[in-house]
């Protein structure tokens, strides 16, 4: 007893000196925590507060509490309903397009052949190129008279006359979607490619002998090992689609007549073009709620899938 009592405190003291005090972990996280609180949590709260006020860009410190007015106005305006519709189409199409193309390209690039590394590097280029530069070259390629893409579309009979496709009510959104898919698919392809490498080679060979590339073989051999990755990519792509600003703002500013106006574009337009900070913040709150629902929903799906897999 007395021996133990004599030894223990010393041991504890040494252990404490070694790992520092109990406060040490908090000293390590404090700078980042303060930083995140000031630049993420605080703006989040401010956004919620602003969304219940009438505040203008010209007199930002002068806000009047208006309760739910901003939200009521938003949801009863046709413009915002269109924005929600465009955002939904944009997000779903980006996810389906980018994950679909990404998976196809990953399957295509999988395997061992000469030039594999180069192929993998080249396919990443669209994802690495800065959004602003992409917006600039896309605008030029779609120049009404001299753009190569405009000429190609005319040659294919997609458009009857030369004209600015990005200002065309029918074509603006599909074109933006196509460019976004082009920007995102490389990431999906590279991630899926590394997931595919985890599939045992023998299994792939077996499927090949059995009539390679068939849908059955894909479902039996490949799908189970990439399913979880596809789920994660779908979530990431959805968030990126909600986030995408530079491409749309620079090429169309949400036009023509709101055909390419996503939540982020609507928010920016309300705040900095129309100077209505209150309603912009309300758009932001809607966007944040949608993002959180997406994140939460995907977690539920993942958990359910895991449980299903175990049972």
């Amino acid at each position: 007893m007395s021996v133990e009592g004599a030894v223990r405190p010393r041991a504890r003291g040494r252990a404490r000196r070694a790992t520092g005090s109990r406060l040490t972990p908090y000293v390590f996280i404090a700078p980042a925590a303060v930083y995140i609180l000031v630049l993420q949590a605080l703006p989040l709260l401010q956004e919620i507060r602003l969304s219940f006020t009438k505040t203008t860009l010209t007199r930002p410190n002068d806000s009047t509490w208006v309760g739910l007015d901003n939200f009521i106005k938003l949801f009863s305006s046709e413009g915002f309903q269109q924005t929600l519709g465009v955002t939904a189409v944009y997000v779903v199409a980006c996810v389906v397009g980018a994950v679909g193309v990404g998976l196809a390209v990953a399957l295509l690039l999988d395997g061992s052949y000469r030039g594999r590394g180069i192929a993998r590097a080249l396919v990443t280029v669209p994802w690495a190129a800065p959004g602003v530069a992409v917006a600039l070259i896309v605008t030029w390629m779609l120049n009404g008279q001299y753009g190569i893409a405009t000429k190609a579309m005319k040659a294919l009979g997609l458009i009857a006359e030369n004209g600015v496709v990005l200002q065309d009510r029918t074509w603006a959104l599909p074109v933006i979607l196509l460019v976004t898919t082009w920007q995102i698919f490389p990431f999906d392809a590279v991630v899926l490619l590394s997931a595919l490498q985890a599939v045992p080679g023998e299994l792939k060979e077996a499927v090949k002998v059995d009539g390679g590339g068939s849908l059955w073989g894909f479902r039996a051999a490949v799908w189970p090992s990439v399913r979880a990755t596809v789920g994660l990519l779908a979530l990431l792509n959805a968030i990126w689609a909600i986030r995408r600003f530079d491409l749309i703002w620079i090429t169309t500013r949400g036009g023509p007549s709101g055909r390419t106006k996503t939540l982020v574009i609507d928010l920016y337009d309300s705040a900095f073009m129309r100077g209505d900070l209150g309603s912009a913040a309300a758009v932001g709150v809607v966007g944040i709620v949608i993002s959180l629902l997406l994140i939460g929903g995907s977690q539920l799906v993942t958990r359910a899938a895991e449980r299903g897999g175990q049972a």
Partner: protein
Amino acid sequence: MRRRLRLGLTARLLAILVVLGLAVFPIYWMLVTATTPNAKLFSSKLSFFPDLGEFSVFGETFSDKGVMLWLWNSAIIALGTAALALVLAIPLGYALSRFRFRGKGLAGVALLMTQMLPEALLVVPLFGIFRNLNLLDSRLGLIMVNAAFVLPVVCLLIKNGIDGTPRELDEAARVDGCGPWRTLLRINLPLIAPTIAAAAVIAFFHGWNEFVFAVTFIFTDDKFPASVGIANFVGEQATSVHAMMSAALMYTIPAVVFYLIVQRYVVTGMTAGSVKG
């Protein structure tokens, strides 16, 4: 049978070439446009190849003070972003990897959330906060906001890196009387130097590519980063198309080259935290 196999191989090779062609075409087209004289660009005939005699356009861009100033500003902002993000992320990553403490789970969730939240949705309140801090129209302000949004990815990468270093070394350092800070600086950081470098490059290019905060927070021409300067080209008639494409290419190439170098880490950083969920 063998012939069919060869046909299949050829088809596959063709498909790969088509995909790669589509992937790089717009960037290639930037090069073609940059090296085609304006008069030729605005004619009905398309030229499909870069004109070797016109590479002097890049020299002109290099001596264009405006464009160089933009690229310089971008470099400063990007370097600052990388430095600040690392300083904040390294201790946090170490704590998340090595310590057990109350609120650790919460810290992890908060980090994931901040990684997932679309930053453009917060541009309005951040604009207000930066105005009150007198950080609008300042490169320092942009560095601060960029570091905040790249912090989660950088931190997760560093945490993963430290997770991979053997704990025995920490113990040994402890026995030798090293405190946690010295253990981190002397033992763990040198071991994960490649990860640190990759994290720095990722943060650098977050700052290099960033647009929404730059276009909102910076008003003065001589503080524009390249993203804002180049975006202003769009819809402007005065600048010659090939000159602006050459500027855009100079802005694009460093981003692409460096991303290729750290590609592996980018994928880990973006997916690591989320996979575990």
